[in-house]
């Protein structure tokens, strides 16, 4: 019953874009129908998923629904449906006649395929759903394929996606070789270390490519930036998590992980986190910046998974519970706050027609609701209390501290680098979001577009507020989700079930709620006090006091680039910014320009050159096929003689 609800929900999503194909291009009816179908599908799917919560898991030859599936299914159904509503205004069919139908067709398909991946119980089904998802995402990214940069971003994505698929081919072929069937079942205990390691590493690369773990993140910034914003929200919020899902699933199948697997995941996660946010800080493009934050958050999630693996190697239940629960909860959290951020970024872009942070400013006054949503998302993504990001990061911190052997005899000193790294990620994220929030929403407008912006409509603000609400609820009441996370942990590592380890005993869930509520109450109280005092003492209004400078203009504000400059300098060894600085020596210098740009170190530093090199190498073989039939005939003789001499 419940599985049919989910399958029905998937079906609704898959078909949601189809009716629109048969409508006229300027008609909005198809779009409305698609959104309604999506909402129905999501309602069905969520009903089915929630219904599965307290039931034994379903596992047959085709589908498997356990707590991990449910945990991933909920955002998969929730976020795209809200994004669809957002799209009603954001990507109105009448305004995008050329690609609206295509967008919605693949939007529905990608949602259905993501859900399909999570319920697949055998590798064939998994791969089919996986690839439908990957390809639909490609078409979503290239929605506006008239634009060359969009095509390039899409192409890069497609290469990465296919490389990931090929890695998964290898993973599943190895799995099948070991288990003898295509079913995704736990591997036998006596598995050779070589094969297990090969499976693990290939899965890490394959799923890491999709998830965007540094240095496999190359496709991510471009793709997120070029896609329509609700698609970016879907990709960043849900799609890359499917990579995490795969990694979580495969890790659960491998018996007796050696300690270094967990260590590798921790290191990869920390690298991804720190460098992701470092690159984010250096960006000028609002959506690219958010995209790099996805790299960062995927890093945090990977750290959680790494911690859980370390826990399994050490037989430390508490580390497994805290690590995996932290990772899974962060999957949700990131889904919510990153969607809020992308959707509000979309609202900004729609209002101002630019993604350049340094052309915006002062939008909080004209778009107060969007600004509020963005602020909530920003606070949440920085992992600050009292919102949801704090909860999952707290789990990770607790687990990481414990994995060192604090409060327990067995420990592993290797994870000592992780908590400070996480702290640094958090602090950098604060720096980055202060920069974005400040440059986009605060201060004065830096361009005419920003001055003329208008607040987004209800269909756009509504989904944002709903998602922001999720952030607040999880942040204030983590007890609500703790049982589900426990179930997820048990499903992941069945030998833990019934053992002494539930989230409620390991993490101060009640205290989190209490602290969050106190914080809010105190802030409100202090705010009221301040307002009363201010009103009581009288206020005056004037321009900003600019240290005595009499005629400041909006362009003189601290730009986001200047804001980031000091941090960029701290990370100059990896960011390698390209700066075109003016060098004016004359007494009366003419107007000049300063440009800085931070290329992606992996993409522009390693990948593109190696691609160019590869192309050069392959081109150098072109002479073999020069149109000369004598040469062709000679190849035949030569090859014949070679083969005759084979033995």
């Amino acid at each position, binding site marked *: 019953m419940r599985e049919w609800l989910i399958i029905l929900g998937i079906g609704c999503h898959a078909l949601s874009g189809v009716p629109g194909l048969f409508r006229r291009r300027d008609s909005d009816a198809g779009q409305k129908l698609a959104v309604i179908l999506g909402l129905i599908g999501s309602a069905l799917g969520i009903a089915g998923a929630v219904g599965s919560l307290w039931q034994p898991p379903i596992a047959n030859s085709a589908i498997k629904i356990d707590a991990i599936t449910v945990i991933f299914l909920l955002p998969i159904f929730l976020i795209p449906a809200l994004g669809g509503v957002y799209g009603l205004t954001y990507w109105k069919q009448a305004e995008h006649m050329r690609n609206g139908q295509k967008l919605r067709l693949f939007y529905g398909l990608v949602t259905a395929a993501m859900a399909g991946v999570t319920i697949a119980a055998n590798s064939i089904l998994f791969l089919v759903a996986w690839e439908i998802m990957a390809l639909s995402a490609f078409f979503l990214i290239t929605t506006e394929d008239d634009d060359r940069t969009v095509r390039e971003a899409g192409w890069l994505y497609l290469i990465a996606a296919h490389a990931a698929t090929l890695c998964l081919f290898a993973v599943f072929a190895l799995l099948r070789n070991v288990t003898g069937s295509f079913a995704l079942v736990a591997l036998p205990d006596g598995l050779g270390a070589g094969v297990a390691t090969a499976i693990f590493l290939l899965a890490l690369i394959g799923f890491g490519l999709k998830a965007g773990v540094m240095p496999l993140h190359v496709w991510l910034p471009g793709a997120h930036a070029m896609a329509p914003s609700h698609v970016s929200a879907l990709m960043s919020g849900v799609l890359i998590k499917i990579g995490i899902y795969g990694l979580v699933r495969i890790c659960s199948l491998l018996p007796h992980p050696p300690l270094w697997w967990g260590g590798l995941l921790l290191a990869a996660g920390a690298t991804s986190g720190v460098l992701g946010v470092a690159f984010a800080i250096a960006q000028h493009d609002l959506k690219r910046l958010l995209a790099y934050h996805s790299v960062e958050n995927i890093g945090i999630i990977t750290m959680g998974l790494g911690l859980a693996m370390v826990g399994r190697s050490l037989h430390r239940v508490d580390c497994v519970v805290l690590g995996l629960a932290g990772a899974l909860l962060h999957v949700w959290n990131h889904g919510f706050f990153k969607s809020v951020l992308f959707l509000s970024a979309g609202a900004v872009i729609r209002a101002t027609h630019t993604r350049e942070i340094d052309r915006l400013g002062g939008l909080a006054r004209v778009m107060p609701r969007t600004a509020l949503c963005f602020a909530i998302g920003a*606070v949440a993504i920085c992992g600050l209390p009292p919102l949801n990001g704090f909860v999952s990061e707290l789990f990770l911190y*607790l687990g990481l501290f414990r994995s060192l052997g604090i409060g327990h005899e067995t420990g592993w000193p290797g994870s000592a680098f992780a908590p*400070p790294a996480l702290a640094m990620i958090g602090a*950098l994220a*604060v720096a980055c979001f202060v920069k974005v929030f400040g440059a986009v929403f*605060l201060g004065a407008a830096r361009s005419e577009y920003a001055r003329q912006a208008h607040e987004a409509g209800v269909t756009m603000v509504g989904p944002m507020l709903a998602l922001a609400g999720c952030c607040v609820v999880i942040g204030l009441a983590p007890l609500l989700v703790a049982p589900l996370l426990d179930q997820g942990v048990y499903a992941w590592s069945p030998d833990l079930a019934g053992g002494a380890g539930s989230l409620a005993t390991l993490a101060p869930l009640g205290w989190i709620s209490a602290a969050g509520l106190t914080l809010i109450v105190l802030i409100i109280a*202090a705010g009221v006090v301040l307002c009363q005092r201010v009103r009581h003492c009288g*206020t005056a209004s004037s321009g900003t006091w600019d240290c005595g400078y009499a005629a400041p203009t909006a362009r003189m504000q601290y730009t986001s680039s200047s804001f980031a400059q000091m*941090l960029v300098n*701290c990370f100059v060894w990896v960011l390698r910014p390209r700066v075109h600085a003016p060098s004016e020596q004359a007494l009366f210098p003419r107007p000049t320009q300063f440009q800085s740009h931070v290329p992606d170190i992996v993409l522009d530093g390693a990948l593109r050159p190696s691609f160019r090199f590869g192309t050069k190498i392959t081109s150098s073989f072109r002479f073999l096929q020069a149109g000369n039939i004598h040469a062709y005939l000679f190849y035949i003789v030569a090859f014949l003689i070679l083969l005759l001499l084979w033995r």
Partner: protein
Amino acid sequence: MSHIIVHILLLLGMPPLLLGVIGKTKALFAGRVGPPLFQTYYDLAKLFRKGSVFSTTTTWVFRAGPVVGSVTALLAGLLVPLGSHGAPVSFSGDLILFAYLFALGRFFTASAALDTGSAFEGMGAAREVTFSCLAEPALFFGFLVLAKLSGSLSLTGMLDGPFPSGWGVAGASLVLVAASLFIVLLVENSRIPFDDPNTHLELTMIHEVMVLDHSGPALGMILYGAAVKLFVMGALLTRIVAPFESGNAWADWGLFITGMLALAVIIGVVESVMARFRLVFVPTFLVAACLLSAFGIVLLLR
């Protein structure tokens, strides 16, 4: 219960005094009489009675800055033990809440600075968030050492009970951590040699330049919040450096207050005998602080 009340009273009342002590120490070194010890209280009282000027570019964020900044500092104060007395609120993992509360405050104070649209305030905000990026890992390495030593994950547990013996077990690590935390304290509270709250050149300031546009009660709140922050972090450091206990609970309060005043004097001395570093060197010192405490945990785990 009564200890909790004392805790809260000290938390609310004592912070401005520390600023006074620092000021007095500096004045002594300079051969001046200096402002009275309670000058900060007078300033606060005056500010809360003054009218405010708001820039036309500002929004609610501008007002949220001081509010969140002071509230988070106070809340963090509830988590930190004062001397040998445990904190009123203590749970496993509260040290993370402690660090993140300051981050939350920083988010809003820096945003408030950007809300004015002033280049100077943007500059200050940028410096504030940049330096804390480097201070945060140092703080967490320190926490790691303390947690490993005590086997506890709450601030009270870490600094309480078996703690004095820690100096015997891992003195070297603790020295490194204390040094590193002292640097963090100076940076986070904008003290010389990292920042000079009293300079009159806005271009070189960090914290003070962020609040240029605030006035009246809001400025008062900022001033108060900064003092609380200094108090809270100072309490943490004092407890690590001087884990003395007299055996009598009330006498311990005395010891704590003495310790805090001593810390204020030390800060004052440091401020008097050192010149402000060039801004570009601040990150280098912070990285050094990180390395100090990282070395501390390496020593402990080896």
